[in-house]
């Protein structure tokens, strides 16, 4: 009996190992960036351990690996289109930034903005500044009111990004309310420029 259980456990173990590294591309795009001679390929991958982003150049050389950015694919809106992977030129330098989103729970999703630096030829996430406590600044924007259609994280034509999220009261004598948080790119990072409670029309 012990041998059977042992064999079964081994079979499960070995059977599940390949799944740890199997991943599928759920979105991809090709970009020509200033500072790189050949187009780069951006792939949003879904694997057993989560969602990640990989950017590779000529001959499949890996230029950037985001690491795990969430557990489930998530949409956001850019140019009035819902997508999980997109671009927008926030800093107006002629090189678009790469946008990718993911859900990780319990309620929250993140939108990452990756910027290419032609001098160092490296990609890095753009920071979202927490002005009240800069140590709590993040490499992503958060929305804790998930909407499947992606409208909880919207990149507007003027370059601002709006997140739907809860506004918690200073003291919990009241319940949290839904609000819109607006971020704007400035001096290499996103700053929160507006936060307002919203109600249905």
């Amino acid at each position, binding site marked *: 009996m012990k041998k059977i259980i042992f064999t079964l456990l*081994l079979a499960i*173990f*070995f059977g599940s*190992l*390949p799944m*740890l*590294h199997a991943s599928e591309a759920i979105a991809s795009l090709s970009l020509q960036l200033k500072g790189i001679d050949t187009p780069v390929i951006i792939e949003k991958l879904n694997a057993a*351990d*989560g969602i990640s982003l990989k950017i590779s150049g000529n001959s499949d050389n890996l230029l950037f690996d985001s690491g*795990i950015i*969430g*557990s489930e694919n998530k949409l956001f809106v850019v140019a009035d289109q819902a997508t999980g992977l997109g671009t927008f030129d926030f800093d107006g330098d002629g090189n678009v930034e790469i946008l990718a989103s993911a859900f*990780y*729970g*319990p*309620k*929250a999703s*993140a939108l990452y903005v990756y910027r290419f630096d032609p001098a160092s030829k490296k990609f890095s996430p753009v920071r979202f500044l*927490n*002005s*009240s*406590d800069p*140590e*709590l600044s*993040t490499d*992503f924007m*958060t*929305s*804790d*009111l*998930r*909407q499947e259609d992606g*409208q*909880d994280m*919207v990149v507007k034509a003027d370059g601002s990004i709006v*997140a*739907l*999220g*809860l*506004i*918690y*009261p*200073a*003291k*919990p*004598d*009241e*319940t*949290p309310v*839904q*609000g*819109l*948080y607006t971020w704007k790119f400035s001096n290499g990072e996103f700053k*929160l420029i507006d936060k307002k409670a*919203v*109600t*249905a*029309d």
Partner: protein
Amino acid sequence: MRQFKRFSVLMLIAAAMLTTGCDATKILDVITKVAEGVQKAIPAIKEVVNTVQQVTQGDNTATPAPNTPATETPAKNDAAVVVTNPGDEEEVGNNPTTPTSTGTSTATDTTGNDSEAALANYRGGRLAPAEFGRLFGPAAQEASRRSGVPASIILAQAALETGWGSSSIGNAKNLFGIKGTGPAGSVTVPTQEYRNGRMVTENASFRKYNTWQESIEDHSRLLQNSRYANAMRNRDNPDQFARELQRAGYATDPEYASKLISIMKSNNFYRFN
């Protein structure tokens, strides 16, 4: 047994090398993931073993021993829950139960039963902060023992999310506003969603739980996500735990961590840790 352990470790390393093409970083990654998986599974395995043991003991005992704690007898509701209106907060008795983590006396058991009964009888509605702590404190402590999430954090998050219990999504017993389907199904409630630049009222499904404890356990389980690993590394420092939640992107509100810390401080929820 020792040989079996050695064999398992060797097999693990061999398998990791095979699946990663002998890349040292990837091998470590695979081993870490498997180890994490085993670590996460240990509480569940223990629970199953305990359950099996209890069942086995129950089968062997035809009649319960006289001094067996009457866990299946419905506890009397001595600890009635006082649901307050927003203006009545100061009128509610301030009688927090000092938590006991290791007590085994009959008196402690009775208090535990009373706490559970009180929580079972609570139907939602705004509570005075002291009452909130007294009611949810033991359940938060139990969840904390299993998950490592500080009890003070659980209480502060539940208080902030629900406005001291005033909004737990109908009868869903959902203390953390988590969408989806829970152990008791889901509750569909009108909520506001953002559509083409304006807010509209639409229906959304939220997780429904059989008990308040289930809601707390589910939330603590969801925080085991690797996203919150830094928070979990600070389980002995609730204030830092709150900051790491914020840093990991638990909430949109940039003031979320400071609001949690403020609640923990002003109500001394640390005493539940």
